[in-house]
């Protein structure tokens, strides 16, 4: 029980104090897990991280479930899950409950008039950062994907096509070389 609480608390702390989304949380987790708690080495942590990254869902939550499970089986996985999601849930619920009342307030609206263009800038900037990691011939591919979504095609189909293409290509390559 103490061990489960420890798993829960380790991820809860990180969730409570880490601003800026998944990637920042991962850096905090690395320190907490490999240095402070000494649960595993860097190498093993990176293995868990790459599996969490290749899977759907919030990366930080995936990592917490995997590592919780490694420490204490199913109960540990659930402790990791709760620890990594509860802080966000509690904070955002409080904001949602109170924000409904003051979102009509003209002063608050001014702040959000300034915030919205900057949100768009941030998302667009992420495209530039990510695009650095792909090859030039893949550029038309992602632009086509964006175009299709704007035309009303569900992103879910495009993700399925991406997965099927990747699996088919790998299958073809591994079997050709034999």
């Amino acid at each position, binding site marked *: 029980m103490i061990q489960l609480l420890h798993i829960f608390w380790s991820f809860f702390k990180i969730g409570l104090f880490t601003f800026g*989304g*998944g990637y920042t949380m991962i850096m905090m987790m690395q320190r907490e897990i490999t240095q402070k708690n000494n649960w595993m080495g860097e190498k093993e942590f990176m293995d868990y991280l790459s599996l969490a990254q290749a899977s759907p869902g919030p990366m930080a939550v995936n990592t917490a479930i995997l590592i919780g499970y490694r420490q204490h089986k*199913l109960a540990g996985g659930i402790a990791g899950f709760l620890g990594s999601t509860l802080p966000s849930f509690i904070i955002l*619920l409080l904001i949602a409950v109170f924000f409904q009342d003051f979102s009509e307030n003209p002063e608050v609206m001014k702040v959000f008039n300034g*915030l919205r263009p900057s*949100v768009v800038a941030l998302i667009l900037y*992420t495209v530039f950062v990510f695009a650095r990691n*792909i090859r030039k011939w893949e550029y038309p591919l992602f632009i086509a994907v964006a175009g299709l979504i704007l035309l009303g095609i569900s992103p879910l189909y495009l*993700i399925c096509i991406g997965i099927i293409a990747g699996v088919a290509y790998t299958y073809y390559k591994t079997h050709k070389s034999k």
Partner: protein
Amino acid sequence: MVYWQLFIAFFKIGLFGFGGGYAMLSLIQHQVVTEHQWISDTEFTNIIAISQMTPGPISINSATYIGYTVTHSVWGSVLTTFGVCLPSLLIMLIASYFFVRLRNNVYVSAIMRSIYPVVIGLILSAALQLMTRENFIDFKSYLIFAGALLLLYKNMNPILVMALSGFVGFFIY
């Protein structure tokens, strides 16, 4: 009825949410704004701003917030948050079991690699869909947009950029 729809919508978002928070925003946008029209583009942009400035993963932050906004009930939040996380929980528990065999699997890395251009496309579409008249109300909006891009390019912390643009908005509008 809306509770069940919310749960299913967020379950789908969690199940197909490859590639991190911003890619998931595009899925959320498609489900919540385009398909079910529970909230408007402007509200959605506000929610992203709030999620960005609060701790935790953006997908969970926006799920919790949207759940409450749509239903005006705590149970709405519980369902959306649980819905978006349930696929993670199931997939990761199964993956833990097969972990040793999965971690160097060629197909796992192939999925990650081939999904990457799709993920960037998702993020681009999210940005383009938010370029509306409601988000860019006048020329000052474009100045904030350009300024934010420049600061991000200069490696300023995104949360600081947000805080700064909110501050600027308060004084110029």
